[in-house]
């Protein structure tokens, strides 16, 4: 098990390094932060000074090795916009992002799971069709369209909620709901097929033959088993908690990590982008590992299988 974990972590580290390297090359070669940050009207000397200051005048491979040398010494670099530690810059934004992505995750699950289960239980009836219809519809509306429309309805016309900003909990409602609705649709589809799969298993028939009422069969036997594959997608959602809100954050002026990423990428603020990528990569990996471990806890069969797969 330890070996399996180590193996996974090693692979994850290589993966993250790969991502960070790719991002390094892309960012370095596709834009000069000096012009972007200082603006096109700043004098050329300012650009020169800026480049010299940040080492951008050195050959790219020198920059690359210096960057990694620093990273291995635990120095993740500073934002070129204000010279603050990139870690701090990103760190400030994390709570804000989580403040909408966590409740959104909750909404996704609270709507998606029951909807998917219902659709599976009533397969091929109007209940199923309606749920799947709504789910697919939810999934197919671009989230910024949905966001803008929601803002227009609830902020401008009805005046119930603020249309953007991050001051109070009320500001979080629309972005959360927008993300929640889109995600719930995905979960509902996934849950439905997981549930259908389980309902076809022999042990469901055994449970019925035992004399359990159908609702108890569903509750005690089908649901726990259907929860297992659903874990994967939940893991994926958790992995995208940090930077999964790029578009919604922009629409609702929510100053989270997603928007920081967009800005940092646009500014070619390398250190900040890299910290976010690391963060995203590591949460993904962490979520995957957590799911792996949870799998073992929820599904006793895997306690053995996983071990064997590790060989």
């Amino acid at each position: 098990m330890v070996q399996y974990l180590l193996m996974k972590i090693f692979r994850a580290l290589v993966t993250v390094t790969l991502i960070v390297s790719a991002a390094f090359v892309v960012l370095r070669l596709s834009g000069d932060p000096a012009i972007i940050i200082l603006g096109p009207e700043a004098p050329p000397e300012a650009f020169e000074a800026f480049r010299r200051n940040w080492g951008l005048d050195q050959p790219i491979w020198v920059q690359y090795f210096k960057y990694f040398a620093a990273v291995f010494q635990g120095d993740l670099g500073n934002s070129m916009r204000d010279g603050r530690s990139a870690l701090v810059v990103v760190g400030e934004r994390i709570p804000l992002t989580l403040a909408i992505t966590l409740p959104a995750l909750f909404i996704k699950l609270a709507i998606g799971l029951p909807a998917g289960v219902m659709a599976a239980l009533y397969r091929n009836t109007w209940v199923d069709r309606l749920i799947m219809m709504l789910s697919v519809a939810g999934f197919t509306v671009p989230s910024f369209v949905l966001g803008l429309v929601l803002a227009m309805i609830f902020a401008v016309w009805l005046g119930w909620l603020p249309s953007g900003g991050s001051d109070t909990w009320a500001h979080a409602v629309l972005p959360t709901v927008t993300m929640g609705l889109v995600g719930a649709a995905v979960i509902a589809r996934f849950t439905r097929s997981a549930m259908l799969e389980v309902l076809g298993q022999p042990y469901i028939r055994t449970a019925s033959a035992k004399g359990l009422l159908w609702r108890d069969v569903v509750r005690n036997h089908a649901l726990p088993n259907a929860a297992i594959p659903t874990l994967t997608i939940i893991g994926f959602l958790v992995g995208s908690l940090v930077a999964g809100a790029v578009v919604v954050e922009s629409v609702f002026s929510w100053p989270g990590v997603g928007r920081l990423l967009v800005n940092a990428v646009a500014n070619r603020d390398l250190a900040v982008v890299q910290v976010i990528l690391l963060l995203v990569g590591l949460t993904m990996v962490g979520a995957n590992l957590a799911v792996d471990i949870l799998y073992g806890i929820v599904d006793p069969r895997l306690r053995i299988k996983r071990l064997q797969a590790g060989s």
Partner: protein
Amino acid sequence: MTIDTTPDLEPASPTHASGSVFTSKSRLRAFFEAWPPLVLIALFWVGVIAVVVVGAKWIAPYDFMALDLRARLIPPVFMGGDWTHPLGTDELGRDVLSRLIVSIQISMVIAFLSTLIAAIVGVSLGFIAAYFRGRIEQVILMLIDAQAAMPFMIIALAVLAFLGSSLFLFTILMGFYGWERIARISRGLAISANERGYATAVRDLGATPFRIYSRHILPNIASTLIVSLTLNFPEVILLESGLSFLGLGVQPPMTSLGNMVGYGRDYIQSAPWIMLAPSAAIVLTTLSISILGDWMRDKFDPTLD
């Protein structure tokens, strides 16, 4: 064989020549069970889209780039406009209907081609991983992980920066989206196909790996792949609109559904038609394809045999 073929005896009952007992459903019911109305509607819409894609050149009433600054922001017919511009005009006085038609064409072609690319790349890598296992598989899995964890925005940016905003390159870029999922699926399917009998059986006949993968495994997993491609297709359309939102999508003067929505969003209050028409096209099309995909999944359900 002992099948009695003597023809000179009447069957037991003239109404049915066999002993099986059938109870027919009403035609209508049977038809709608086989072809649910939603599926029919979805098929119809996909058909319409197909016609638009093929015939955009002839259907579009105006040149989609022709601008007329004196006829800016004319509302569509149902919002008080007239029939010269049935869906109104945009901020440069271009005919929204014509742009919509061309946008549909371009978005669909992008989505189709890039899905194809994703399929080819994904299936090839998935098969390579499944065939070689070991180190090579680990490397491919790593690529898959990296792709999945890398915000797509960064890749999009790279392409836009290095390769310019050519439509061709953009299509290839979009092909990079989703290959990792397809690679994962086809690797899984190929491994289980290898474990299942037929692939092993053919190998044991002396077939080369290429033959096994191309002739046997690919056709066998095709149905599952097609279903997952029907998921990829709408996602590419949505992704393109998301990238357009960030200014990284299809670039002017070219147009696409995402591009129209992206540039039209500023007009959501003053001239909503600019954005609503392409939004509706996105929703209806992705909805239709998803419905067809789900329907196909049920059709391909292995429990049927």
